[in-house]
């Protein structure tokens, strides 16, 4: 059993788990707020259509939340089992941030979710609205802490040394580290877009199946309008996040833009097949001096290439392609949302081909989120914590056989769970709010 294989299996297992997990919080963070909106609309109007809408999406939320909880429990174990070196080296910083997430978010959302799901006839209306609000607040607080930790790993700040141990010097600097505000906003908007496309897409599916459904028309419009507002905001925030990355993690930007050599007047690579072996681009389509212009706002400015960071440089091809998938999906989502808002103006029902398009975009947010996650996490390689800890230094002594056996178990379980989830979601959406 060589370490390279154990490292690969540990990464495959953790990557699978966290990649599967992220799907569900990225939906529930924003869906929680949408539920609160539906619930308040019902409280104000007393209109049974809003109640039916609220109940339908509550089911979707409960299902997604359960998927997030159980995969999240798995993660809480894998932090330690797969990456013992991580906790030993930076546990004094990572640990408290995770502990705060459990204490301030997990119990809050889980407990009030019970009241929200089962307590509508047992508590006064205002208390039920309050419970829905606490669930939404809980999911957002959870995102706050986990992104504080993720951002700290990307752009560490506020830490100090006590002997050989890394400890927090200033907790505020640790939490509000340089990339945190950008990453947190970027993630919340990503969740907003994911949820709004799921709502719009499943509502469109319902309209295709049923022809007419007032509640589905409402939610189709809600989802599209929300997406149309959030998509351009996300482009602006994403750009700011990129500039922040250029300042703090220039190696990641070099990988995103497939820039190999440091130089002045560097071209912008629109498309290419980056070759990590030979450190060059094949089939490149470039805009001369474009990268210098975009990144430094000066056509002759110097931009650092991958060669400046070797041997601690990330692989280029996966980062380069994942970035283009993210941006491409994002642009398509913007177009879909805007045309959708136009097609549903003044209570109009979009044509069937448009409804099919929205249905096709149901999980577009997941694709963009996963691609973005790959960009940011592969882009920090080989570091686990930038400048402090490399991934290969954190892997533990679990044998390849044990990792392989449990990985197989996880793959089977996740496949069953994902298929069941999609089947039930389609089924729920097909029946609509009248079910």
């Amino acid at each position, binding site marked *: 059993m060589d370490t390279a294989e154990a490292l690969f299996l540990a990464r495959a297992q953790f990557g699978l788990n966290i990649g599967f997990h992220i799907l569900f919080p990225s939906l529930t963070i924003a869906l929680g707020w949408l539920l609160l909106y539906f619930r308040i609309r019902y409280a104000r109007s007393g209109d049974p259509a809003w109640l039916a809408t609220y*109940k339908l999406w*509550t*089911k979707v939320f409960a299902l997604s*939340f*359960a*998927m997030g*909880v*159980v995969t999240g*429990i*798995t993660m*809480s*174990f894998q932090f*330690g*089992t797969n990456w*013992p070196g991580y*906790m*030993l080296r930076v*546990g*004094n*910083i990572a*640990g*408290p941030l*995770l*502990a*705060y997430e*459990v*204490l*301030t978010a*997990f*119990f809050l959302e*889980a*407990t*009030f*979710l*019970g*009241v929200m*799901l*089962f*307590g*509508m*006839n*047992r*508590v006064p209306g205002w208390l039920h609205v309050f419970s829905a609000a606490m669930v939404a607040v809980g999911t957002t607080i959870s995102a706050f802490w986990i992104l504080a930790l993720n951002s700290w790993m990307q752009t560490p700040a506020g830490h100090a040394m*006590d002997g050989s*141990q890394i*400890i*927090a010097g200033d907790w505020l600097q640790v939490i509000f580290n340089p990339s945190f505000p950008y990453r947190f906003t970027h993630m919340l908007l990503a969740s907003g877009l994911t949820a709004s496309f799921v709502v719009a897409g499943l509502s469109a599916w319902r309209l295709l199946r049923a022809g007419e459904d007032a509640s589905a028309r409402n939610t189709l419009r809600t989802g599209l309008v929300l997406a149309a507002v959030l998509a351009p905001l996300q482009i602006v925030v994403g750009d700011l996040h990129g500039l922040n990355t250029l300042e703090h993690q220039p190696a990641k930007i070099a990988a995103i833009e497939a820039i190999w050599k440091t130089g002045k007047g560097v071209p912008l690579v629109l498309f290419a097949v980056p070759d990590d072996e030979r450190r060059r681009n094949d089939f490149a389509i470039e805009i001369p001096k474009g990268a210098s212009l975009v990144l430094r706002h000066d056509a002759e400015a110097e931009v650092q290439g991958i060669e400046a960071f070797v041997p601690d440089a990330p692989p280029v091809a996966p980062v380069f392609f994942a970035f283009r998938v993210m941006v491409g999906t994002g642009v398509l989502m913007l177009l879909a949302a805007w045309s959708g808002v136009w097609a549903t103006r003044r209570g109009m029902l979009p044509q069937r081909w448009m409804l099919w398009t929205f249905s096709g975009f149901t999980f577009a947010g997941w694709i963009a989120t996963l691609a973005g996650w790959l960009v940011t996490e592969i882009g920090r390689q080989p570091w686990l914590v930038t400048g402090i800890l490399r991934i290969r230094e954190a892997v*533990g*002594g*679990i044998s390849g056989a*044990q990792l392989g*056996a*449990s990985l197989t*178990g996880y793959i089977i*379980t996740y496949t069953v*769970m994902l298929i*069941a989830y999609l089947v*039930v979601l389609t*089924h*729920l959406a097909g029946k609509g709010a009248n079910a």
Partner: protein
Amino acid sequence: MSLDLPLAFAALMGLAILMYVVLDGYDLGVGMLMPAADEREQELMVASIGPFWDANETWLVLGVGILLVAFPAAHGLVLGALYLPVAAMLVGLMLRGVAFEFRVKAEGWHRGLWNWLFWFGSFLASFAQGLMLGRYVTGFHPGFGYYLFAMLVGASLCGGYVLLGSTWLILKTEGALQRKALAWARWGLLWVALGVALVSLATPLVSHTVQAKWFDFPRTLALMLLPLATVAAGWMVWAATGRLKRGEREFDWMPLAATVAIFALAFAGLAYSLFPYVVIDRMTIREAAAHPSALKFMLVGVAVVFPFLVAYTVFAYRVFRGKARAGQYE
């Protein structure tokens, strides 16, 4: 006065694990009892745990979270040694967690499948937890006898959760289902007796440190209160289920309360055996503890958040007090 931080976090971790065992124990137990009930009863059983299971499992995250963040060195040692049972437990918890949601929405044979997965996941998670306990208290010694012992503890913990689950059902249901639960509870009690006896006998045999702590006159006399109280609590479960069988309804909370007492007493005994070790005879809580700066920062959070946590947990249990009613998402 300076606070003993490792001690404070060891106490906190103990509390979180005990809370987890009792709270998720009753809903895992209800999951394992599913095949013994008919379809209408199954709906009631699921309805009785519906509002709570998410929050119950969060105590596990808190418990393992404290182990991870307050005692990082022990976390690697313990979970590394328990890697496969932990993975089995996680798969079990995942299956039952999602089956819980899926079974309501499924129809026909799909529903049967999810019911089965709900039972299987509950059983797998419970058995794996017992296995972990069995391995943990014997210091992860290799050898056939030790593995057999761990399997027996696994079976006993399943019995213990069945006891918790059935006494929970005695409290939350009435009529035919409650009568069934009374019979289940007595079966569970026998398994608990076996499990408690096994662990109590094994720990002093495996570790001389533990032996010395318990068999040290005259302290032993005072310590005997613990097993005596456990036996008394067991007798209360037996007596209370008997009275309920004869139709005296007002004590429907008594079997659950006495069962919780059994778990708390057994846990206290185990904690006494282990302290100050976090890994028996190998690593103490002080050796495993994280840096004081990290512990202090977390303790602030605990102090601020805990009252709220307790308050809204109590609130949720008050909202859903009384007998369970069938029906999803009222």
